[in-house]
């Protein structure tokens, strides 16, 4: 697909040749994830996580379709039908725990996938659209996960739907009508549950569609790699199959072992006990938090406590959505032509500070909104935005990057001593200029 030396698909027998001439589906698969897709030979295990996220989606769709066979999206029976799945349906407990923990694992691998992209500059030209489509997938995942969490109609479900739709109530003038439109009433009720069920079933397939675009856009320039240096010759690449199917297969094995370990031995560790209490519109749980994967965003939401021109509530909502919208502009906020953090020593330090900052935000988001956590999340929120809006643009103009290897194959052969200035990137300040 991407390089002239990509192996062409050759049908192995008459049947495949017949099929290939009429519907070249085997050709498509071969070129996308078979021997016909040349991949840089130096990928490390961080490049497993895209495939793992795809498989996590498949697990969610398969277990989700099965849960929908037994679940009733009706407010008086939703909670009971979930208990019915847990107690009566054959292996229903397994399928539901796989679905609930599968969502968490989907976010774990997706977040690692995103951090991989941040570190190795995967968002940089010519892969800006790959990055942006990935962010669309993240937003869709968040919407899907939120609506799925509402379906069991426990206490956390009910109050999550109330709080999250309440975010839209912060919009000036139209906020309240929008919130009522989303809920189909004045508070979460039967209409809310029914529409969330419908959309929770729909969105995973929309995600699958955007993933196809994500991979399509990726396969035009081909996969990035830990050096960030472009592929130049056939020596730089290996066919996806069998080299990376094998490597991804190993990573998948590890992933499934971990998923099974949590599902079997700590299935409720990542959940909230309050959600095993049926929804009660007259009583809010004392400590209401979203699922762990929303904690950093929840901390940003709650960090705004003072009205400044706009109400504090609106600032929180804008900042929370802004924290992701901001990432759409990342390719232009960080115009440094050197992609990989391996060759950007200063960038690398700030990258780890950002990771720490997001972990702190996540930690605060899971705790009650009390001091000192509010103040800590305020500082961490400021840093989060400063990293992208101030630190990265300045870094990309002032940082003195390390010399890049001449080629991928040379870096693999540990020819670092013969490193030279990048030959492929125009506009780079030659890093090996006379000292």
């Amino acid at each position, binding site marked *: 697909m991407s390089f002239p030396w990509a192996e062409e698909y050759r049908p192995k027998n008459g049947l495949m040749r017949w099929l290939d001439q009429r519907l070249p589906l085997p050709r498509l698969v071969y070129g996308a994830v078979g021997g016909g897709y040349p991949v840089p030979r130096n990928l490390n295990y961080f490049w497993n996580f895209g495939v793992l996220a795809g498989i996590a989606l498949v697990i969610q769709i*398969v277990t989700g379709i*099965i849960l929908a*066979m*037994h679940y009733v999206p009706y407010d008086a029976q939703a909670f009971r039908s979930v208990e*019915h799945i847990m*107690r*009566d*349906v*054959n*292996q*229903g407990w*397994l*399928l539901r725990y796989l679905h609930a923990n599968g969502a968490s694992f989907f976010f774990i691998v997706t977040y690692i996938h995103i951090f991989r992209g941040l570190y190795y500059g995967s968002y940089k030209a010519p892969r800006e659209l790959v990055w942006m489509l990935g962010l669309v997938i993240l937003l869709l995942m968040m919407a899907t996960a939120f609506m799925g969490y509402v379906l069991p109609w426990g206490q956390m479900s009910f109050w999550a739907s109330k709080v999250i739709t309440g975010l839209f109530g912060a919009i000036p003038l139209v906020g309240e009508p929008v919130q009522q439109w989303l809920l189909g009433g004045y508070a979460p009720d039967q209409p809310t549950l029914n529409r969330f069920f419908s959309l929770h079933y729909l969105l995973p397939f929309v995600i699958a569609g955007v993933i196809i675009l994500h991979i399509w856009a990726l396969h035009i320039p081909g996969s990035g790699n830990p050096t960030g240096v472009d592929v130049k010759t056939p020596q730089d690449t290996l066919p996806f199959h069998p080299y990376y199917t094998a490597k991804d*297969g190993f990573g998948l*094995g590890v992933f*499934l072992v971990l998923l099974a370990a949590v599902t079997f031995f700590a299935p409720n560790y990542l959940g909230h006990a309050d959600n095993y209490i049926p929804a009660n519109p007259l009583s809010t749980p004392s400590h209401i938090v979203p699922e762990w994967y929303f904690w950093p965003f929840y901390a940003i939401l709650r960090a705004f406590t003072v009205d400044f021109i706009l109400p504090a509530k609106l600032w929180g909502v804008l900042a929370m959505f802004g924290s992701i919208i901001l990432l759409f502009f990342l390719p232009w906020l960080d115009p440094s032509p050197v992609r990989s953090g391996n060759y950007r020593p200063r960038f690398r330090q700030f990258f780890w500070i950002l990771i720490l900052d997001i972990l702190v935000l996540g930690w605060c988001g899971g705790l009650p909104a009390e001091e000192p956590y509010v103040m800590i999340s305020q500082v961490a929120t400021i840093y989060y935005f400063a990293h992208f809006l101030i630190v990265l643009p300045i870094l990309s103009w002032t940082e003195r990057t390390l010399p890049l290897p001449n080629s991928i194959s040379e870096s693999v052969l540990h020819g670092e001593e013969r490193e030279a200035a990048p030959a492929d990137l125009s506009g780079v300040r030659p890093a090996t200029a006379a000292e």
Partner: protein
Amino acid sequence: MATVEHSDGTLAAGPDGESDGLRRREFINIAAVSVAGVGAATTLYPLVNQMNPSADVLALASIEVDLAAIQPGQAVKTIFRKQPLFIRHLTPAEIQAANAVPVGSLRDPQTLAERTKEGKPQWLITMGVCTHLGCVPLGAAEGEVRGQFGGYFCPCHGSHYDTAARVRKGPAPKNLEVPDYVFKSDTVVTVGEEA
């Protein structure tokens, strides 16, 4: 590698003497794909089995019926496993009529004794599901037609059953099914339990 000791020739590689590495790779490949295959097949079990009747459905798989109030000549309809169940108190005349039929002449040859419990030939307990295409035959409720043979009559495609609920005329291939049941006492019967 000790695991692959037999050289079958086909795997012995070229002159560069890498035959051992090649066989080792084949072995690892087959072993890994086999384990993954067994894992995938095992995973299919819960995915398929979840569609079988769940525990709450199975919990309703047997019912208890009190027969004391059913007079001779009367029948009741009740529900067993979400399907109609006919319980009929045969009169001596109906028993006689059933026993008078030569068994060999029947489409599904069975005697009344085979279709009732020993010593209780007056209690005819059958599913109310026509063996043709599953309609509910008439004849269990007061005033319903009982067909040419005084048992049940299926209005969908005109199958006639006699007083032992055996098919006598029409498209039905079998007699009305007799479920498993046991008499807990003289007047209480548990349907869905084997003796």
